[in-house]
């Protein structure tokens, strides 16, 4: 959701499929999007060799300052997801309606945690 809105704020419409499908599907209008996605994958799930390679690729694609930002953001969201699911919070009210199409398109309603995150709000599935 914030990816779509933030891209629109700088005059871009981006495809969001890379968020779910990974580096090969990342919209090329996001600078270094493939390298950023591969880096996130490697930090979260990769072995040491995969992570070392992803780090080298990312450092070749972005500035040192941007690389540090990337590591911080990945670390930050390893935290956010556990808070959201560990506390069972619901989606913020102002996000529910505006994300309906996107959730459907990306299959996010199929995530196990959708049950508590949507709370009593209806999940629309085909």
């Amino acid at each position, binding site marked *: 959701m914030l990816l779509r809105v933030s891209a629109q704020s700088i005059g871009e419409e981006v495809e969001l499929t890379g*968020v779910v499908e990974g580096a090969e599907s990342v919209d090329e209008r996001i600078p270094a999007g493939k390298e950023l996605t591969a880096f996130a994958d490697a930090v979260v799930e990769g072995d040491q060799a995969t992570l070392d390679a992803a780090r080298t690729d990312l450092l070749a694609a972005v500035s040192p300052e941007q690389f*540090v930002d990337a590591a911080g953001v990945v670390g930050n969201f390893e935290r956010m997801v556990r808070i959201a699911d560990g506390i069972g919070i619901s989606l913020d009210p102002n996000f529910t309606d505006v994300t309906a199409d996107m959730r459907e398109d990306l299959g996010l309603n199929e995530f196990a945690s959708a049950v508590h995150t949507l709370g009593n709000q209806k999940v629309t599935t085909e």
Partner: protein
Amino acid sequence: MPQITDDQRDPGILANVTNDFATCKVPVREDMANAHAVVLSRLARPGAWWTGAERICIAAEARAAITCPFCVERKKALSPYTIEGKHTIDPMTEGVLTEPIIAMVHMMVTDVTRITQKAIEDLANAGFSDGHYVEALGIVVAIRSMDQTCRGLGVPVHALPSPVAGEPTGARPAPLVDGEAYVPMLAREQPHAPDEDLWGADFAKTIPNVARALSLVPDAVRDWFALSDVQYIPAGKFGAVNEGRNLSRPQIELLAGRVSALNDCFY
């Protein structure tokens, strides 16, 4: 929002964090070292529900869970609550933490999407209040966040600090509301003293649920803001969707979305 001040961080801990970051191939921002040092300094002190020694053992178990074979087995099980076994723990935890909280801490790291309200109620029946649960989760997520940042940067994870003696306060903040999540959270208004620094009346109506989630334990929210401010977007700028850091906001949100998807996190 809570502000970081020099007196919140132990100088020795800051020196250790700075030394860890100095091994990175590129310079790491000073504000990130400060934030990590503040969180680690707070980790060492007694909290609302756990002693300093217990808090550090919870952090150690957050790390031990990553290589725990029983966690792997449990993750594969149709239900994580029907499988029996023993978690592999950090030696420092022996005799400090008991099995119910160790099992829950490991689940927070390796299988968080399958934590249920009933599991939290079962923990309460074993003697651990909702406050114990929230404080433990706050510790787990803070350590996980800092460790994964270090892993990304290619530097060692920070050493866990030595505990500071003292007893938990048992304090509950106000005003709490029930029914919005598995545990009570602070209401969408400025919290009462002594926690009015968490957010002001101006931010209260728009504060995202993920920022309120740990508010049963105010220091966990202070950790939340300390890390978010340097590793994502400063709290007052969440809604300013064209505000980035050195990365643009779309690049930041791509990373955020991807990490959430990898963790099967709907929120």
